[in-house]
């Protein structure tokens, strides 16, 4: 498997930020009241992940070990602030929805984690790809989580998507009429519950895959 393919697989599934590494729990739980919110938060985080990956990778030969964490923090907080200002200026409606959470991106340890574990050792190109894939993986995870909470919580899917993506995407918005909603799922405890069940489901899938793999291996041994 080439490194690029490995990076893509890692980001989307094997080492998914939320379900694999269990990183970035703060934004994960705080912003996934709806699929749309999850999508927005995920996209903003992706931008930051790619930028920080490229920057850290570019400067990887300059940054001294002793101060690397401080420098990462400087870089990331700057990027986040720039993203915040840019969104406030040119994506104002979206900023009003996500405004509270954008500064929170800086405490998303996934970003620091990728900088330390990946970008600081690789070339900018692959670091950008890693950032992008981790970001997309994060976005997908947040969307799934938000979607589940939203669907159970208030019987909608991608509510207000048009506010984030423009009127053309209004078709995404689904609504179950006459559904009274389970408020708990929208509230913070619902985030924990949904996350717990999703992680459990993923673990079960992995365990099944392992059993299958060991079974086929066993057959091979028996056949030989």
């Amino acid at each position, binding site marked *: 498997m080439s490194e690029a393919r490995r990076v893509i697989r890692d980001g989307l599934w094997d080492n998914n930020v939320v379900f694999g590494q269990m990183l970035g729990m703060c934004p994960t739980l705080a912003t996934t009241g709806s699929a749309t919110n999850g999508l927005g938060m995920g996209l903003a985080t992706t931008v930051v992940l790619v930028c920080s990956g490229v920057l850290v990778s570019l400067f990887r030969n*300059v940054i*001294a070990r002793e*101060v690397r964490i*401080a*420098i990462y923090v400087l870089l990331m907080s700057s990027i986040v*602030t720039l993203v915040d*200002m*840019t969104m406030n200026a040119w994506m104002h409606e979206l900023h009003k929805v996500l405004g509270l959470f954008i500064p929170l991106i800086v405490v998303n340890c996934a970003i620091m984690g990728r900088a330390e574990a990946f970008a600081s050792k690789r070339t900018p190109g692959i670091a950008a790809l890693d950032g992008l894939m981790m970001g997309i993986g994060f976005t997908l995870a947040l969307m799934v989580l938000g979607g589940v909470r939203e669907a159970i919580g208030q019987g909608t899917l991608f509510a207000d998507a048009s506010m984030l993506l423009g009127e053309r995407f209004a078709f995404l918005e689904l609504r179950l009429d006459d559904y009274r*909603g389970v408020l708990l799922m929208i*509230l913070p405890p619902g985030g924990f519950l949904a996350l717990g069940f999703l992680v459990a489901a993923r673990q079960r899938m992995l365990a099944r895959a392992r059993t299958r793999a060991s079974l086929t291996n066993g057959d091979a041994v028996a056949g030989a």
Partner: protein
Amino acid sequence: MSTLATGGLRQRPGLLLGAFALGCSALLGAGDLVTRAEIRLRQAEDLRHALDQTLASVPHDNNPADDTVAVDAGNGKTITIYRARQGGEISGVAFNWVGEAGYGGPITLTVGVAHDGRIASVRVLSHSETPGLGDKIDVRKSDWIRAFDGRGLDTGTRWAVRKDGGDFDQFAGATITPRAVVGAVHDSLRFYAAQRERLLAPQAPASAGREGEPAAVPAKGSAS
């Protein structure tokens, strides 16, 4: 950056950190410069939009956001009044009003009052009522709050919930929250009546409020 210079910086982590801090500051400064004007514009738009909504039923041809006057509310607090004008004559005002405690704490309203002392519209700006029970005062959850439109001190309205012999519905399962809101709106109207002469005094638009600095931003959605 020459190899010599980077090598030198690597040996001096303090200097390296300083250099990064400087670079990041410059970046943020530049970002601020580019976005500042745009962001201010957006915020002004927000305020205007909110005021236009609150004063939608009041004919006006000015921008109430630019026509403010600060009034002493008596308890040491100052309330900023936004005034709507039609042909130079004041046709209505809007202001934020902090009511008495509901079930979960104080409820902040934005009240629009027409020239004749009747309610143009009331919106809840922030509250911490029980989700799903007391939060029907939010216009996004129910139309209950529209019941105030057109009512005034002189319209024969009994300013209380039905349970207390008034004209306003309580909602099923919750009495305290609507009781608090009805009381708050009633209070705000009395405040308006007491201050009416001063508020309606012909005054040059620019002389009162400090221009360009909204004292309160009644942005919709901030209650979420």
